[in-house]
């Protein structure tokens, strides 16, 4: 084993000049040598704090040790015991606030690059399929489960339950699987092939995917409950929030969901080969400070915008985006306008967007979230000329599911009420997890909830507990 280095190893990136005009992946991944060198920095701590920092509890020192030992099949197996989507998580998890945050090396700012090593392991698996034994499956139980939504929550629950021997059908509204991974996160951060490969692995477990099925319209949950023993809802938080300011419906104002769906799901960046158009924009403003805002801004840049700015009402420190995404965006030339907030959009006589009026903000006392509350500075309005605006201020769950399912209770935020330990909803035999219960959160937290749901569904089906709805979550939790 190499001597522990005290600095973490950088991951090679596509050069800025090149990547600004293509949708190929920006981060290129470790070489085997880099991975081994990085892995050998790990101290194999007795207390293993990193595991508790991981929402699905991957045996992190375990798989890192396997990399050190040149035993990559073992590394794959170790990760896959807890995480069925490592190629995805290695790329998009906010490791700096999770496992890497609690790594003993983090104090010096040099936490083990757990995410990069996870990604390396998953990529190795993809290129060396024949060396991996197929995942084991329990004998068939004859129980049937409907999983609604094929985002990370749905995929995880489907894989877990299939491995437990249940027969699983995933119903998805869109024409393809992956949820936000597919329609939201751009190819330059998470290539479609990675999602497709991981979905193929789940299909190989016998999971059936029924696309083009909007539950609530095409089939209702009550109908599903007639044919299935249990239903899991992983329908995410798909409803875009707008600001309700004047001019928001001008031509050229997009929700991030629309802009990213056009670009990613519908591949508008390959127009006209792909038939869905998108307004690329010459001067683009993105409103918001999360991953979604970074993805939208960087996509706009790649579509050929001359100037892309991000307007965020707090400062860089408060930005909820992954640190790496903010860094990459700045490197690529995205301009950051902090402490500002739009008050209205202005258009020309044809109602095409031509500018946005903003007001300066300052940070006041901390609010309930603990972050300092931004307050408008009177008389500080200023105007930015733009032809495309992308509103990336978050999403809430689509009310369709709760409206069409008697017995499903929601909070005032529109999220489903559920029991965190079991993922049970207020409706018997219906479980839920992911953004539909938390509001927009992260891939891994969706997967964590899904794993808890799968365990509880399995327990429920095996014991026939509460068949008539006894012991079910009380509606008033």
């Amino acid at each position, binding site marked *: 084993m190499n001597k522990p280095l005290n600095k973490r190893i950088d991951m090679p990136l596509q050069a800025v000049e090149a990547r600004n005009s293509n949708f190929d992946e920006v981060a290129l991944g470790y070489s085997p040598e880099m991975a081994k060198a990085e892995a050998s920095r790990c101290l194999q701590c007795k207390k293993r704090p990193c595991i508790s920092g991981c929402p699905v509890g991957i045996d992190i020192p375990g798989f890192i040790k396997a990399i050190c030992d040149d035993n990559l099949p073992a590394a794959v197996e170790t990760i896959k015991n807890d995480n069925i989507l490592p190629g995805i998580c290695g790329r998009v998890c906010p490791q700096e606030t999770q496992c890497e945050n609690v790594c003993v090396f983090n104090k010096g700012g040099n936490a083990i690059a757990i995410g990069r090593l996870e990604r390396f392991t998953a990529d190795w698996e993809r290129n060396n399929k024949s060396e991996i034994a197929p995942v084991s499956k329990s004998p068939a139980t004859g129980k049937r489960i409907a999983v609604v939504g094929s985002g990370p929550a749905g995929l995880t629950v489907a894989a877990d339950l299939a491995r437990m021997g249940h*027969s699983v*059908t995933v119903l998805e*509204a*869109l*024409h393809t699987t992956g949820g936000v991974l597919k*329609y939201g996160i751009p190819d330059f951060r998470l290539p479609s092939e990675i999602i497709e490969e991981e979905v193929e692995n789940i299909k190989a477990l*016998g999971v*059936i995917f*029924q*696309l*083009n*099925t*909007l539950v609530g*319209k*095409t*089939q209702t949950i009550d109908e599903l409950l007639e044919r299935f023993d249990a239903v899991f809802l992983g329908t995410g938080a*798909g*409803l*875009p929030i*707008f600001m*309700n300011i004047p001019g*928001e*419906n*001008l*031509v*050229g104002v*997009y*929700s991030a*969901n*629309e802009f990213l*769906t*056009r670009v990613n799901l*519908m*591949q508008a960046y390959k*127009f*006209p*080969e*792909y*038939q*869905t*158009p998108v*307004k690329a924009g010459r001067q683009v403003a993105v409103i918001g400070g999360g991953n979604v805002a970074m993805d939208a801004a960087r996509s706009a840049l790649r579509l050929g915008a001359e100037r892309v700015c991000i307007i965020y009402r707090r400062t860089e420190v408060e930005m909820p985006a992954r640190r790496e995404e903010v860094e990459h965006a700045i490197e690529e030339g995205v301009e950051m306008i902090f402490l500002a907030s739009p008050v209205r959009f202005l258009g020309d006589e*044809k*109602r*095409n967007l031509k500018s946005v009026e903003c007001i300066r903000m300052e940070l006041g006392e901390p609010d309930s979230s603990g972050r300092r509350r931004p307050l408008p500075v009177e008389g500080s309005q200023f105007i930015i000329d733009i032809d495309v605006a992308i509103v990336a201020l978050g999403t809430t769950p*689509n009310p*369709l599911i709760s409206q069409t399912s008697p017995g499903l209770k929601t909070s005032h935020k529109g999220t489903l009420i559920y029991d965190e330990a079991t993922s049970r909803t207020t409706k018997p035999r219906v479980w839920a997890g992911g953004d539909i219960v938390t509001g927009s959160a992260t891939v891994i937290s969706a997967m964590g909830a899904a794993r808890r749901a799968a365990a509880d569904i399995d327990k429920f089906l095996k014991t026939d507990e509460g068949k008539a709805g006894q012991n079910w979550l009380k509606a008033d939790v």
Partner: protein
Amino acid sequence: MARCFKKIIELIVYKILEKQNLATNVYLFRIKAPLIASKAKAGQFVMLRVSQKGERIPLTLAEWDGAEGSITIVVMAVGATTCQLSRLEEGDKINDLLGPLGNPTEIEYFGTVVCVAGGFAIAVIRPVIRALKEAGNHIISIIGVRNKELLFWEKELEQDSDELIITTDDGSYKRKGLVTEPLKELLEGSRDINRVIAIGPTAMMKFASLTTKPFGVKTIVSLNPIMVDGTGMCGCCRVTIGDETRFACVDGPEFDGHLVDWEEFMSRQTTYLDQEKYSYQCSLGTGEKHHG
């Protein structure tokens, strides 16, 4: 497992069972789609994607047959997708079909209802007419087409409605003029008109609404904005109704025509005019975005 898999495949393979050329550039497709057929109601639509690289476009349902497990759509070949669709034949498969989407038409007994349709929307107003008729309403249908060649289902509409008025822009058949003229006459006449429903090109729905407004007769229009998902996920289809922004795909597609911000609606429909021209390979076309 294999059997169950086959069953699901059957549910989601959208095979064209019948194709008809109803009028110049207007095509009818009856498509296998059992799940959609079992749920469909008047006024609802589907999202359709012809091929892997295609756009998702909304099309209002013209008919459905729960027993056969089929739905019927009628399209006018005016854009890239509708042209591509019009080249498909019986036995071919549609890549993706999602539905039924949107809220059904409000159906109850109103009294006398005038149903106005323009262009190939003749096809999609039929289920509305029939449902309203079944609820006991007296139906006066006003159908407007540019010329005689574009008219279809005259007999069917005559059967479905209590009264039928046909107008052509060029006077090549029946009454010359626009649908708003007979509509106005009816409103000015001695009979009580309790509701108007207008489906068709945007300009027609707008002017029908403007015509009825002074008379205070509730007028429902079926909006056809550009859509992407059709499930409430993107907000592309947003329209201003009164003072509120609504998503046409989930809050509509039918709204009170007197409350629609028509200027905004029309501007949003032109968002991709340049790109549409570019990707448009067929010869014939008007500016109207794929209406269904």
